[in-house]
Structures are given as structure tokens and as C-alpha cells.
């Protein structure tokens, strides 16, 4: 799902946590499939593992190029630092998964975010799947069950009961933490900022309509502003982009963004 349509489909068995566990186990050295399976499932003690619970995470770890198979053994194919912590793991996997614009995961994500407020009409994952299908992306409810874990893990939104609450706060914050191209503490005009943002997080492009910023990005930026990670500025006589409009907020247009220091 993270690679192309021929790769293993999206299902809930392969959660980010499990993929992280697979990759971390290989920090101690290469292992055969059987060693991996027995070790991760502790089958000698806990009994045999459901095959899906092992094979899906294994496949996703391969899709994300965290691990590779060579000479009958799996080994970690990324520097150890990338799986040193869950944050490092998220940075890497989000970057990898969401850079493949042809992958099923990317297409679904992009379709979901482009729904904007219509996303809130979907009371459950089945309805969300239908909405995504209407966007021209073939997907099932089962796929969406798997998608939500990764989408919320990557920081594109929050799970609340059966709904997906779009808000890219964490995703944008992660991108800001890793970026080196934008200056810190300086006013960046909104076009430049979005040019960088949508290059770093291409899945966010679809939610924007011209200079109207989509719901997930808009709300994400508002939270970033409130937490002090960025300052959204509406400078008179400057080119403006529109946040998702809230009558209750006085800041609805932005001309510049200032990134604060201390993001990590």
C-alpha cells in the first residue's frame, strides 16, 4: 500500500506500532523470517501468532524500506538512528510514505484531505470510504480501517470515536522540525511558506483551492500558531491567503508566517 497497487493492501493488522516493533527487533542483527516471527510473537511462550499480525507489518516495513531481505535473512536497511525513537520513526515513515504520490496510501490520504468540511459528514469509516470512492480512488472500508492508524500517526488528523478529525498540526510541525530551507524567526510570505509546505507534504496540496487553505491545514496552522510554533501574520497591503473561515476568529487571512525557534 505504501509502494504501489501491487503491494500488500491497507489493513488494520499492520499498524505503525507493529512495523516499528519489526524494525526495532532487527537492531540486534539480521534474522530469518522464522526467527523474526518467533521472536516477535514469543511463540515459544505465547503460542503461535496469527499470520496477518506478522506478515502485514513485515510487508509494510519492507514497503517503507525499513528492512530488506538478503541471503534468507531480514536486516535493517536504514540507519539505526531512524528507528531510535518513535519520533524518528514517524519522521522517516511519513516522509517516505507520503513522498510516493502514486501509492494507494497517498491517493487515499489526498482524497480524504480534499474533502475538507465534507469529511465531517462521514459518520464512520464506511461512509468515509464511499466519499473517497467518489473522489475517484478505489478503496474499501477495510482499507480505511488500516489507513486511519497511519494517517493519525503521521499527524494528519485525530481519531474520535468513528470519525476522522482533519487537522495537520503534527504533520506540519514534524515537517517544520526537519526543515532547513526556511529561515527561523523571520517573516516568510505565505506563498513561499506554502511552496515549501506542499513540497514537504505533497498530500496537503489537494485540500487547497487556490488561495483558500483546506480545513486540515488551516486548523493545523491555527494550532501551531496557538502553541507558539509559528506566528500567523495578516499584514495590511500584502498578498493574503485565506484560512478556513471562522466567524469566531479575527485571524482568517494570512500574509506571512514566522517560524519560531526551538522546534525539535
Amino acid at each position, binding site marked *: 500500500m505504501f509502494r504501489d497497487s501491487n503491494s500488500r493492501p491497507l489493513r488494520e493488522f499492520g499498524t505503525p506500532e507493529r512495523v516499528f516493533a519489526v524494525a526495532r527487533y532487527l537492531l540486534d542483527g539480521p534474522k530469518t523470517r522464522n526467527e523474526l516471527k518467533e521472536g516477535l510473537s514469543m511463540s515459544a511462550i505465547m503460542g503461535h501468532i496469527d499470520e496477518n499480525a506478522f506478515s502485514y507489518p513485515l510487508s509494510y516495513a519492507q514497503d517503507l524500506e525499513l528492512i530488506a531481505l538478503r541471503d534468507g535473512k531480514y536486516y535493517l536497511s536504514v540507519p539505526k538512528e531512524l528507528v531510535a525513537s518513535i519520533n524518528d520513526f514517524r519522521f522517516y515513515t511519513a516522509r517516505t510514505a507520503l513522498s510516493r504520490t502514486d501509492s494507494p496510501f497517498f491517493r487515499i490520504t489526498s482524497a480524504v484531505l480534499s474533502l475538507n468540511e465534507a469529511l465531517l459528514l462521514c459518520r464512520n469509516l464506511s461512509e468515509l470510504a464511499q466519499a473517497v470512492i467518489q473522489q475517484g480512488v478505489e478503496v474499501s472500508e477495510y482499507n480505511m480501517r488500516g489507513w486511519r492508524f497511519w494517517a493519525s500517526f503521521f499527524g494528519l488528523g*485525530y481519531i474520535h*470515536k468513528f470519525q476522522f*478529525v482533519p487537522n495537520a498540526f503534527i504533520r506540519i510541525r514534524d515537517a517544520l522540525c526537519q526543515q532547513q530551507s526556511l529561515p527561523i524567526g523571520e517573516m516568510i510570505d505565505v506563498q513561499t511558506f506554502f511552496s515549501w509546505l506542499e513540497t514537504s507534504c505533497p498530500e496537503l496540496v489537494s485540500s487547497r483551492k487556490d488561495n483558500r487553505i483546506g480545513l486540515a491545514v488551516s486548523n493545523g496552522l491555527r494550532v501551531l500558531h496557538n502553541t507558539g510554533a509559528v506566528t500567523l501574520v495578516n499584514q495590511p497591503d500584502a498578498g493574503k491567503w485565506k484560512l478556513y473561515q*471562522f466567524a469566531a476568529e479575527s485571524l482568517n487571512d494570512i500574509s506571512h508566517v514566522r517560524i519560531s525557534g526551538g522546534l525539535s
Partner: protein
Amino acid sequence: MWEQAQVRLRTIIQTDVMGNEEWDFLATHVPFEKLFVTKSGKTSAHEEVWSEEDVFRNLIMNPGKEHRFIIVRGDHGAGKSHLVRWLHARIKSTGSLVDYKVVFIRRIENNLQGALKQMLEQGVISRPEQQERIRRFLEASQVLTPLELKLKIYFGFLAKLEADQSHESVYKEAERQRLALLLSDQAVKDHLLRPGGPIDRFYSAIFDPRPVDRPRAEAVFLKEDFMDLASIMERLSQDHRVKRVFAEVTKEVGASKLARYLNGFSDLVIQEMANLAQGDIASLMKDLREDLKRKDMGLIVLIEDLTTFTGIQTELVKILSVAHGGEYSELCPILAIVGLTNAYYENYFRGNFQDRVTHQIVIKESSYDEELLARLAAKYINAAYLTTDEVKAWFARGADQAELPYRTWEPEFPWDTIEMADRRRFSLFPLTRKALIELFGRLANDEQNPRFFLRNVVRSQLDSWFGYRLGVDSFPDCTHFVKTKPVTLEWAYDMRLENSPRTREEKQRLRLLVGLWGDGTLEASGPAGKEMLAGLPLQFFDLLGYQSILDLAVDVSDKKPAIAPVEPPSRPTVSIDSRTRTFQNREAAIKAWYHQGQTLAFSDDMKKLVYDFIIDAVDWLSQGVPAKIVETEFSHRGMVYIEGQSERSADEERTLITVKRDKNGYEVLMALCHWDYHNSSWNFDDGPYMQYLAVNWLESKKQEMVDKLKGPSHEDGAILGWSMALEYIRLGVNGNLHPNLTDVQLLELLFKPKGEAEDARWREQGTLWHRLQIRVNRSKKSDYENSKVLLVELFRTKIGSPDRASLSQGHLYHRKEIDDAFRNLAAVGWDPTTLLPHDHRRLSKARRVAVEELNAVLPELKKVLEAEEKEFRELVAELGARLGEDLDEKSWRRAITQARKFLSDLSRYNIYVEAALDHSLQKLEKKLVRLVQLCAIVGDLAALSFHKRFALFSANPNALLRESLETIEAVEETAADKREFAAQQLKRLQDQYLRDLPAVSELCEEAEKIVGLIVELRGDGCASE
């Protein structure tokens, strides 16, 4: 100007709005246009709507000098006194009523003293003796203390009760004596005299000056006064007669009866207090009327409030309502105008009393409509700007309303005005018509009348306006409405205001201005230079000092259309109305919690909503918090604390998260309240905004929650290590470790789901080790079990929200973390002492349990191991002493072989030995290698790691050594026994031999003799054969 206006305002609208001067009264008077007049005393009689001028013209102007007894009635504060006072002023201003003596009894002190004082001053009391008595009464409150006066009232009732001879059918004499005894009891007396008690009420009605805005409690005994006595029962006298009557009067029926009975003496007691004899009032009024008759004059009596004549109302009404003529031809005509409340009229004007009433003028709610309220406000506003000299001069000129100077300060921008009766328009600034109506509507139900309107709306707002102009106050005044009926705008506007960088007080004031003065929106309108916000001129906000007010304005063109039709919430079991009502109540409760600082009602429901949101929305994995930790340490809604909760079920310190009474806290509660109402969905008009608010709050709190869940160490591996160490100890104490255990086997043992019943190998009772087993398997069993669950579950991956996580899709572990924790423990020889946190008190309970137990059990375990080692060394030394110091295989084998041979030899000589001994030796032979190993270890014991030593003693080696020693000792004992036995036998034989030896000599001698005889008989050769 502003200072003077403020002083004037406070003069013209005092707490008692009727207490001001005549000129001010007329300068602020607004005519009643809707008075409901009936020409009868019956409440059901036909009503006509008259103006106050109609009343004056048709009822007061009385050319035929007809008898009139007119009641002016209405609820508290409706304006009865105002109307009576206006009628009085109107009577004085007209020239056609000069042949009347006018007596006007105002409600100045609002008590009997005040009423009688006015009667005295106005020449109603003519007899010197009566005047003297009343003067003494008026001086009474200066001569006597309140307590003395109250005691006089109390003893007055007691005396009436004891002396009563005329109510035998109510209470027989014996009963009255018992009642008198009860009422004389010190505790009962204190109770009746207490503040707010019945005697205090009588005292208050007679002597206590009181503002009119606080309706006086009626001067009567109530049944509750006696039913309440139950609360002082334990302080009651032990006299059985008192107790008997006490039981009766504290029941409802008995209490009502006694109250009714004592109330029958009220008028008499009060009159005695006032030095009035029975019939005094009637006689003094009669004297007056006769005197006036002689002068061919009539009498007009105006009484603002009849209840000021407590104790003499009945007598007064009777004499005022006596028509002249006929048998009363010596009396002058009388026109009485008496104010009283609706409640009083309904309760005391019954039957023939109503028949005495000739007219009723009723002031109803509809008497003071919006127009009247606006005119009233405009008049008072203008009067505040008038100087006293100006108004006095106007009064002196005849107080013509059309000539009243208009001095209201007006702004330069257009503002609401109201047309007065004389067609002039008066400005309402700084109030608007809408503000007046809204503010009136926000008064408490029993305060929605002119008196409270003037005091709590006009005076308070105008006062703050003057204060603002003087630089000492802000406008508008929120104090009367912030707590009782807070103003909130439509959600989006309300939040826009809430989000603006203004102080809380400023926001409150702007809410009032926008919501009550203006149209409730934050929409801007109007051309440049004449811009409006909320329908109010921008200059108004500028004038009031609100900076950058246009920042609040909503660009109407940018308003987002509704995202979808809001689906009507529906649940099969609950009606929509009920759900909506619940939602509205919750919303109101949240607003009251935030804006008024009240305790949050429905806090349990809100905690559940917040809890569910947090547990779902936080990606715990991303935060590095294992689902098991969340499940254990954030397990229920009680972990959410809402600031200002009344219940303290959970210590705020120990809860995971506090919803603060701040803007973010308010927003998240409102958002989740709306989400819940809309069928657990964000699909509603403000859904996109509210879900942003919810996330915004979550992100502001997330790190705090995560830090608490992670604990001070921030190392999940450490938690796993502690649980692993505790399980290791449990295994070892239960005898499941041994020196040859491999790491794989140990890991298997640690994670294997085995309980105590399966794996405990109990040691001998009374031993230190057994005591340790009791601790592990009994007294601290649940700690070990919980720790084991944490160990197994902590790094097991889960799917979904922690509270609904599914384990059905297989078990997959964070094996790396498990192995790391295992390795860390192995690296310290499985003695986790160095891995424990220095200050475990900061840890959560779930984590603290393992650490606390480790801290407790480790020293104990180490002591036990020391004792085991000591015994081990002693046993080996003993064995060495018996078997030779080497204790190698050779010496063991030799010893066992020799012992067995010895037993075998004994057996061969048919000497009995217990078979068990040989069996024991056989067992030793089988455990020879282990025994040799154990004995060889003794030299290295000191160098063994904790793990090696624990594993060694977990397998209970001392038992084998002890058994070996005992076996060897048994063999030795057997040998010793058998040797002793054999020695005894031998000795016995020897002794026998020695005993038998003399006989042998004799025998020998005898034999020798025989041999000699034989030789003698047969020769030497035969004898030697």
C-alpha cells in the same frame, strides 16, 4: 458636571425610591396610563382601564362628598406608593379640595412607630392623654434595648396565654399551663427570640426601620416556628409535662393550632406595646372626623402601605370605612386611599371587609409597559443632570411637566429617544430602548417592577456611565447580571469576542453592549464615517474607550455557509425535546461555570466526554506511551478533573488532567457538549470550528498528560525492568530458579502465564524462606500479579484506542525492548537495586507498586540468602567433619559405600536396621554429583553474583545437604548403637565367663579328681585320651 450628576442620581434613586424630595418626585414622575379600576371590593368585579389623571378626576375630585374607601393594590414594587404619593401631590396642587383635611401617612420608617409618629405630627391625635401615650411609645425604642423590647413582646404573649379564659374550646386550662411551661423553657424562649424568629418579626414590624425593597416578614406566628423546635429537643428541660406538650406542638397539626391561637393575641400585644388601649384608634379617628364635621370639612386619608399599621390595621380599616350619615351623622365624609399588596388583600380583606371597599385601583404588570419603562428611565436620566436648584425652582413655579428643564447629555451621534407626555423627546443615552427592555427582562422574576428597574437598571447603568466619565468606573455595569443571567452571544460571535485580546471584564461589558444594547451580532454596517457595529454607532464604542473595535467585526461576505443540513439528533429511547433540553442545560451549566465561576453541573457527563475524546484522539504510540500504561493509569473518567468541581473524589494532584476554568477549558467543554448533542458527530454548523477548539485544547494539554503517564523516569524499559525483576524474585522465592538456568529458559519462565498454585515449592514452615513465600504468594499476591500483567502486556502491540484495543488480531511484541530490559537486568546480576528510581513517590500507583515491593522485598531476600548461606556453610563444614575435608567425589563415594557395606554386614548377622536408611544412602548415591558440586561451591560462595547465589538457594541446596548430613548421622548413630549393643553383649558374655570361672576350677578339680580316679582305675594312658 459628571460628579454632580452622580450625586444627584444617588439622591433621586435611593434604595427606597420613594424617599426623595417632592420636587424630585415630580420631576421624575411618569404618568400611569393603564390602571385597572373596579367600583367594588370584589376581586372578580368588572375592571376599567383608567389613567392616573382619570383616577384623580373621577374618584378624588368628589364634589358630592361621597364616602370612598379606595384600595390601591399591586405586587411589591409595582408603584402603589408612587401612585398614592402622586395623588397626594395632585390633591395639594389643586385648589378645589381646600375643604378637606388631608392626612398622608407615608411609608418612611416602614413600621408602626413611623406610622403613629406621622399621625401625631399631622394632628390626627387630638386627646392629650393619647398623645402622651403615643409619645412614650415613640420614645420606647430609645429607652429600651431591642432585647428588652423583644422580651416585652414575648412576655406579652405568654401573659395572654396564661391569663386567657375565653378559649376553653381551643385549649383547656391544664393544656394552657403546659403550653406556658413549654414556652417559658429557656431553650424554647431562645428559639422564639432568635433573629428571624416570630418575636423578632413582631419587633421588626413595630420598631425596626427597614428599606422598602426588602418585604418585611409578616408579624405572625407560623406553624414552622413550632415544628422547628424539634431541632432543640436535646436542650429541652427534662420536665415530663414539657416533653408531653412538646411532642404535640412540633407536629404539623399541633403547631398550626398553637400558631393560630397565639396570632389571636397579636393585635392586643402590639397595641399594648404601643401604649394603645383597645379602641384608641377608632376613638381618635372618630374625634377627628367629628371635629371636621363641625368645621364642615371632609377628611382625606392617604396611606401608602397599610401594613405599616401592624396590629391596628383591622381597627383602622373599620373606622376609615365607616360612611358618614345615618347613625354616623356626626362624622365628616371621608375619602380614604389605602395602598396594600395583592397578597395582603387576598389574605385579610375577605367577606365584609371587601364590602367596605368602594373602589380598587390595581397596578398590574401591563401597567408598566415598554413605553412607560423608557419614559421612566428618560425622566430619571434627565433629573440626574438637573441641579437641585433648577428642579426646586421648577417646583416653585408649579411643577408643570411641560416646563421641566431638559438637561440630558446627548452624544454627537444619533441615539434612541422617547416621546414624553408633553410631546418632547428625551434621550435615553447611555441606554437604548432595547437595553432597557433586555435589562428589565433579566431582573429576577419578583424584581420585574418599576422599583427594581430604577434601582438595578437605570441607577446602576447611569452610575457606571458617570463613573466612566469621571475616570473611576467602566461602562456598562455588569455586576447585576454577570452572576444571575449572563449574556452570551451566538456562539461564533461570542467566541470571536472571547478570542479578542481584551480583559475578561472588558469582554463581559462588550457582551452586554453587543447583546443587550445592540443587535447581538458583530456585523459591521453603514457607510464610511457612519459605521455601525452590532447596530450601534462606532462612535459610541469610541466614546466608551473601546479601542480597535472594528477588529471584532465579522466580514459578512466571509461567513462560511453551513457545511450540511444539521441532522436532527434522534435516539429511539429519548425524545428529541428531552435531549435538546439536556443539551441546553449542559450548555448553560458550562457558561455558568466559565463566566460566573459556578461549580459545573453535569460534571460527570462532561468528564466522560473529555475522557473519551482524549483516549481516542491522542496517538499514544507517537507519544511513546504504551497502550497498557494508558489503559492502567488513565482508566476512567475520574482521571479527568474539572476545575471547581464540588466533589473531590479524586485528588486533583493525582488526576491525569485538569480542565481549567480558562478559555481553552471552556472551549473544549462547549465543543464536546455540541459534539455529543449532534449524535457524536462533528457534522454541524460550527463543527469545523469546534473540532479545531477541541484539538487546540488537547494539544495544549497533551505534553502534560504524556509526562504524567511516562512518569519521572521517562523510560518504559525501566518499568518493564522493574516488573521483570519482581517476577524474577517471585520465581526464585518459589523455588523455580536454579544455577544452570539458561537465558532462554529464564525468559520463558518470566513470561509464562503461571500462577502461584502451579509453581510454588513451599519451604518448611517457620523458616525465613517460608515467610518470604508467604509475602510473595499471599500478603502481596496482587502486587505480584499486577506486575506480571504489566510485564506481559506492556510491550504487546495493540490495535485501536487503548480503551477498546483489540487483542484478537494476534500478539506481536516489541521484542527488542523486552530483550533490552532482560539484558539490563542480566548486566546487574539480576539485582535491580541500581535500576530503581531514587524517589518512587512521584511514580504512578501502577508503577510504584513494583518499585515499592522491590524496595521492600530485596533487603528481606538478601537477609534470607545470607541466612541460607550461613546454614549452607555450616552444613558443608559438618559434612566435612564427618567425611573428610575434601568432600570430593572419592570421599563421598567411599563414605556411602562403607556405610552401605556396614548396613549390609549388620543385616548379614541378622542385626535389624531400618530399610529407610539404606534407601537414603541410595538417594545420596544418586545425587552424588550434585552433592560434590555443592560442596565444591562453598569456597566460591563469596564471589557469586546475586543471581548465582539466588538461583543456587532457590533450588534449596541446604535441604539436600541437610538430608545428606542427616543420613550420615543416622548411619553413624546406627553404628554407634550397634557397637554399644555388641559391647554390652560381649561384656555380658565376659561377665558370665568370669562369673562362671570358679565353678570351672571346681569342675576342673573335680574333673581332675575324676581323671585321677579314672587313672587309678585304668592307668595314665587311658585317662589322657
